[in-house]
């Protein structure tokens, strides 16, 4: 649980899925008497609208989109899955085995064996389990690529706290020796926390304030970033300051690698800093703000896809130019307007 608390997006996704599960099993869901698949799907969409915490909350709709896609996959195609690549193959094989094993069991929990509950039991609940499993295990899948991208005695740059990056580095540490520089943003103390967490595992860590980024970038070989949302054009929404780092990295020809779970894929488009953004209370930046000197703080930084070299997700490695393919596999086009 302590690791989940440091991952607010993952936590909110997981919580919302569990809420759905509770609604369904507690029979509080307002579903018509003989529900079809479509009824369930509309119910899930309505629930996601209710649970969403504002126009800039991407993670709850994302996870429900994924759930709906898994439900469609499970219910429509029967047994035979198109084989695309090795990693996907094994996952969907797991799905078929899971489904077949469930159908062979007799269900004791639900009272009446009507057709509606059969749908719920056979399709919805297993899909929920599938999605939860994907959320939990995303870090392990990312870590399989850990040692393939580093050489010995490399210097890596990271920015603020990211649990995905932390796990990635810890698994890479087993096979490679490297040095880490942590950039610290001016407002929160997440940078310090990240440095201490890394330092506990005997990694060589240096902590610098954000203003030193240009001076330090000369020494850096690669940049690793965690992300808040991956947009459909390949752009990213991240913690403020990452745009500046990516611009610098491009100047110095330092590759930028982005690590994220697939639950952050958001099928939306942005073109500048203001499309998905929100101003933060001035008191967070400067407690002495008055109306005569307002402090401006923002929530996200948008980074265009040209600045990024590689995406490593738990569904595979992608370039910004090709990550749209992942969207079409992961989500369904019909659900993009949740």
């Amino acid at each position, binding site marked *: 649980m302590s690791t989940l608390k440091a991952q607010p997006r993952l936590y909110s996704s997981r919580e919302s899925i569990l809420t759905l599960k509770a609604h369904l099993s507690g029979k509080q869901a307002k579903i018509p008497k003989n529900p079809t698949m479509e009824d369930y799907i509309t119910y899930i969409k309505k629930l996601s609208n209710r649970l969403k915490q504002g126009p800039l909350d991407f993670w709850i709709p994302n996870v429900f989109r994924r759930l709906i896609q898994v439900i469609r996959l499970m219910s429509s195609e029967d047994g035979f899955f198109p084989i695309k690549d090795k990693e996907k193959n094994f996952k969907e094989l797991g799905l078929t085995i899971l489904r077949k094993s469930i159908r062979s069991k007799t269900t004791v929990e639900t009272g009446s064996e009507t057709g509606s509950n059969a749908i719920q039991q056979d399709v919805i609940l297993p899909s929920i389990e599938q999605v939860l499993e994907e959320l939990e295990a995303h870090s392990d899948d990312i870590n399989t690529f850990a040692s393939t991208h580093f050489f010995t005695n490399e210097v890596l740059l990271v920015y603020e706290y990211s649990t995905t990056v932390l796990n990635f580095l810890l698994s890479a540490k087993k096979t490679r020796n490297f040095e880490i520089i942590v950039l610290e943003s001016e407002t929160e103390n997440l940078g310090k926390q990240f440095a201490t967490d*890394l330092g506990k595992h005997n990694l060589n860590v*240096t902590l*610098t*304030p954000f203003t030193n980024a240009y*001076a330090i970038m000369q020494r850096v070989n690669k940049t690793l970033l965690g992300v808040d949302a991956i947009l459909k054009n390949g752009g990213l929404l991240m913690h403020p300051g990452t745009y500046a780092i990516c611009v610098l990295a491009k100047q110095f020809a330092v590759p930028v690698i982005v690590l994220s779970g697939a639950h952050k894929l958001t099928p939306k488009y942005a073109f500048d800093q203001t499309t998905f953004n929100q101003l933060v209370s001035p008191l967070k930046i400067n407690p002495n703000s008055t109306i005569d*000197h*307002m402090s*401006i*703080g923002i929530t996200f*930084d948008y980074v265009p896809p040209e600045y990024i070299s590689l995406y490593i997700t738990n569904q595979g490695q992608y370039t910004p130019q090709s990550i749209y393919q992942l969207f079409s596999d992961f989500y369904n086009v019909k659900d993009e307007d949740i």
Partner: protein
Amino acid sequence: MSEKPNPKKGEAWKPKEKFDKKANKEKLKQEQDQAETKQESNKTTQQQQQQQQQQSKQSIEQQPSQQLQPINDKQIVQTDTSNKRKDFLSHLPIFQDYTSVSIKSVKQIDPQTLHHSFIELCIQYQNGQCIGSTHRCVEFLNALKQFIKDYKLPKQSNYFAMAFLTELKNIFNLMENFRTVNEGMSTSYLFISECLMILRKTKLDENESKIWLCNQIDQFIQSKIISASELIIKNATQLIQEGTTILVYARSYLIENFIINYFKQGKQLTIFVVDNPQFGEGSQLVNRLLQQGISCYQILLSHVSYILSKVDKILVGASSMLCNGALVSRVGTALLACLASTHKIPFLVFCESYKFSEKSQIDSLSWNEIAQLEYGNENQQYTSLSLRYDITQSNYINMIVTEVGLIPATSVKAVIGEFKKYNYVDAIEVPRVDQ
């Protein structure tokens, strides 16, 4: 203090929360030191003559050892701390906390050189009260003038000029212990040595030469800093039309005066101040502007990407300009310059000509200064690093506003060449013996 148009030290600046505990300790130490030094200076004026006799006897025999003494001073102050970096920055100087013990130990070696005005100055450097290249230079020259007034010649040498030249070298070596000597201070050193060379040829006695030297220092401050800033402001006012949006980084003496001047003429500007919370300079600038009735927006360096599309020009102050066109300035300026060039925003540098340097530097890590402000990592799980200076390359700089005009970054070398003909200032007025 009356030379500077800024308000006095005591009023405006309050230490940030970070510095509070330290500042209180420092104030106590400072008061103690001042009390001690005043008592000691009364005693030492009597003892000084005896010591000077001894020193002057030794000075003839041990001239090479005088040169060695400054090296000893450095060793004593810097090896008090065990925090020498072992990584890729082990070549950079770190200036640690000066306890009164370390200052006194330096003082024991050369009691005449470490005047109480310099001790005050060094504590101010450490406190954060004296940041910014112009401020530091002016304060240093004021301290130097006080030192000149209290300076007494060793009996054997009759020439003030000769003796003071060596004293000057000692002073600069000592100042190196407390913070790096910036370019403005080096230029003033060259200027003063030129003056002393001229003094050698004349035959003024001690008091008159002291008065003349103090006058020359005043003239240096007046012409190179104050009139220069007025000219720069005049040049810049032509550049910037009313109603533009400008972005300013941290606090620079020139830019602050420029903004205040601009508003006094009745024109309006939209101002964004980028803050560096480590040194707290951005908030200082905002407070000073508020006192003048100018409202502005404050923003952090990581959030700058949001407003870059709305900004027309970026104005930045300088610590020095190098011969290859690079700008040495507060850390974070290079980042801003890089972003500005990506968004095609003009990047203007305000720099007086006395800060032009003959050095060249390409990257920020080959020479820098480490600012030790972090005291949190007692567990030693990570090392913290914060630099003070930043090198901005000449291709990011659009224009430099100096008192000799508006020049591109690549013309710095030409300007330095011009100055060399005149010994870094206009012709020095030779003192007459009648005075």
